[in-house]
C-alpha cells in the first residue's frame, strides 16, 4: 500500500495446516527478517500466489488435507512461478522418499530453527543478486 518497494522486506509464504506449527513458522520467518504470509492449505496458497508478486520463498508442509499436498503445490510453484524458492518439510516422509523439486530444500520435522533461518537468508540473498 503506502510503503515503498525499496524498504519492503522479502515475503515468505508459509503453508501449514496445523495452527501451532504455522504460528511457530511465521515467527521463525519474521525473526529471520522476512514478511510472513500465511496459508492453511495448498489451495489457499495458490490463490495468494496468483494475486501477489512479491513472494520469494514458499515454505510448505508436505502432509496437508485438501486437493493438493505440499509436493503437488511445490510442483505447481515450480511450473507457474519458476523463480520462487521452495522449502519443504514433513514429519511423515524421509528425505530419501521425497522427490524434491529442482532447487528445493527439504527439512525433516521437527526442524532445526537456525539451519532453516540460514537457508531462508541465503535464498533471499541469491534471489537478490
Amino acid at each position, binding site marked *: 500500500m503506502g510503503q515503498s518497494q525499496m524498504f519492503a522486506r522479502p515475503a515468505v509464504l508459509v503453508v501449514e495446516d496445523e495452527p501451532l506449527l504455522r504460528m511457530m513458522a511465521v515467527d521463525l520467518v519474521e525473526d529471520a527478517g522476512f514478511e510472513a504470509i500465511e496459508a492453511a492449505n495448498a489451495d489457499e496458497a495458490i490463490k495468494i500466489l496468483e494475486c501477489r508478486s512479491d513472494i520469494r520463498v514458499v515454505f510448505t508442509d508436505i502432509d496437508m488435507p485438501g486437493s493438493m499436498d505440499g509436493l503437488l503445490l511445490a510442483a505447481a510453484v515450480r511450473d507457474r512461478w519458476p523463480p520462487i524458492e521452495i522449502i519443504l518439510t514433513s*514429519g511423515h516422509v524421509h528425505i530419501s522418499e521425497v522427490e524434491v523439486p529442482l532447487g528445493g530444500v527439504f527439512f525433516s520435522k521437527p526442524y532445526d530453527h537456525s539451519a532453516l533461518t540460514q537457508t531462508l537468508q541465503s535464498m533471499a540473498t541469491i534471489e537478490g543478486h
Partner: protein
Amino acid sequence: MAVRGVRRGLESTVTSERDDDTRRLEALALYEIMDTPPEPEFDDIVLLASELCQTPVAMVSLLETERQWFKARIGFDLPETPISQSVCAHALKSTGLLIIPDLTADPRTSENRLVTEPPHIRFYAGAPLIAPDGVTIGTLCVIDSQVRPEGLSLTQKKSLLALARQVVVLLEMRRNSSRKDDLFRRQKRISSEVRAIAASSIAAQEAGGIGTFDIDVATGRMKISAEGCRIFRLPVQDEYPANIIYDFILAEDRHLPSADKTRAEGTALLEAEYRISTPSEGVRWIARRASFHHDSDGRPVRMVGTLQDITEQRAAQARMQAMIELGDVLRDMEDVQQAAFDAAELMARALGASRAGFGMVDPVAETVLMHRDWRAPGVDTLEGLHHFRDYGSFIEDLRRGETVLIGDVTTDPRTRDHCQTLLDIGIRVLVNVPIFDKGQFNLVVFVHYDEPHDWKQREIDFVRSVGDRLQAGIGRLLAEQDQDILNRELSHRLKNTLSIVQAIATQTLRAVPDRGPIESFEKRLQALSSAHDVLIHRNWTGAAISDLVTDTLDRIGMLERAQISGPAIFIGPKATQSVMLLLHELATNAVKYGGLSNGSGKVRVSWDVAGSVDQVQLTFTWKESGGPPVTEPTQRGFGSRLIRMGLLGTGNVDIRYEATGIEVVMRASLSHLQEAG
C-alpha cells in the same frame, strides 16, 4: 580390568583345549570319514535341516585342527574352509545349540571373512555332533544370508538337535558296516560259502527293489535278475539281449545306456539315470550303476551292475526341493501375487501337473479372476474371469479354508455334474488352495492335470503342506505390511507431536531474553527425532552404533573433525533413543566448551566389546583433544546429568578432565543394550 580377567581365563583353558583337539582328531580318524565322497544319508539330513529351519544353507561340518570339512552341504559352494573362518568352532565347547542371530553383531564372528565378504552369511545355528564317548567332532549347522533376530523356534531347535544325533548314529552305523564289508571281502576270497552269502545279499537287494545284471561284452547277452526284469516290465527270464532296453527307453535319453561300442571300448557311463516308457505306469526313472571286468589284456569282457526304479525317490526329491524353494519364496516375498505364482509353479513342477497359477476371488459374486498361469507345453491359459458355480460346488469347501483336491472331476460328487465344462478347459484333476486375508477368502492357488493322475498319499500331504505354508506365509506378509503402515503412521504422529511440543516451547519462551535454553531444548528434540528416523528405517529393530555416532556429528556439521572406530554392533530400540540423546549432549558440549569449540580440536569416538560369551560388555569412549583447557563444571546442567547416567541410565561412567580435553568412558552390558523393549 574386566578385559584382562577374561584374557587370563582363556589362557587357563588352553591345555584342556589341546586335549579336546587330540581327542576330536582321534575320533574323526576312527570314523574314516574325512574327505570321503558325498553319501545320500548325510545329504538327506542337511536337506531336512535346511527345510526345517528354513535356511538356504545347511551343513555337516567336521573340525580338524586347521580346517573344517563338510561331509554334506546344501547351498554352500566350498567343500571346506580354514578353521579361522569357522563359526562352528565356537559351537564345539557346548553341548547345546549355538545360535547367532546376527553374525555381524557378534564379536566372535563380525570379522569372519564369510561374514565380511561374499557369501556374507548373517545367521548361524549349530548343533554339536557328540560322539558316544562325549567328544564333539563337529556340528550340524544351518546358515542364512539374512539376519534372523527371532532365531529358531522351539520345534526347529529340537529338530536340529535330533538331526545332529542322527548324524552321529549314521557315522556309527557307517563305521560298523564298513567293518562288515572288510570281513565279507576276506571271506569271499577264502570261503566256499560265497554263493550263499551272495544269494542272500541279492534277496536283500530285491526286497529293496534293486535288480542286478551281467552283460557279456562279446555277445551282448545280458543275464538279469528277476527284479531287474520287473524294473524293465519284462517277463522274468534269466537272459535278454542287452540292447532290448532300447525298445522302451525315451528318445531323449537314448545316449545314456551302454551300447555295443561303448561296452567294447569300456567307455560306457558307469552311472546313468534314464527314463523308460511303460504300458501301465507311464514314464519311469531308472538308475543304473555298473563296473567293467577286464581280461588279462585289460579289455572289457563283462559289464556288471545294479538297476533300480527311482521314480518315487525322484518325485520325493522333487517335492522336497519344491518345499525348500517354497521356503525361499515365502522368506523373500515382497509381493503376494508374485509369491502365489511362484508357489503354484513350484507345486506344478514337483507334481508334474499341466497348469498352475492363482486367481483373485470375489467371495460375494463367487467369481475368480485368474492371473497369468504356469502351463506345460501345449496347455491353454485360464486367464480371465470365471464363476465358481460353473464348475461345481467346491467353493463351499474353499470358503471353510479347506484345500480342495479333486482326483477326477468326472467322478467327484462336487464336480461330476459339471465335468464337461472342466474337461473342455483341460482340467481332469483339480487342486485349489484358498488363501484368506483378514478372515476373507480372497485368493486361490490352483494346480490342474489334463490327464487322470494316480494320487499318492505323499503327494496329497505335499499339496496340503504347500497350501498351509503358503497361507501362513502370505498371512505373515500381509500382517507385516499392516505393521509397516502402522509403524509409519505412528512415526508420523510422533514427529508431528514433537513439532508441536517444539512450537509450544518456542511460543511459551518467546519473552525469555536468553535464547540458549530454548535452542538446547529444540536440538534435544531433534536428537530424539533423529533416533526415531534411524529406528524406523530398520523397522524398529535397533540401530548400528556407528550410524548413531555419524548421524549426531553430521547434524552439528563436525563429522570431518571426528575419528570414529569400532566394530559393527547393533543396539536395541530402547537403548537407541537414550544413546542418541547422550551423544547429542556430548557433541553439544564439545562444540560449546570442548574440543570442537575452536577451529582445530578433534574428537575420537571408539567402542569395543570384551568379556565372556554370556557377559559381553561394551566400552564406549569419547575423547576430545586440541580444544581449550577444560575444568570440571561447578554446576550440573541437564546435559552433564544425562551424560553421567551412562548408556543405560544406570551410571558406569568415568569422566576425566585432562588438560588435553575431556575423556568420557562408558560401559554397559551388551545384552542389556540389545534388549528390544
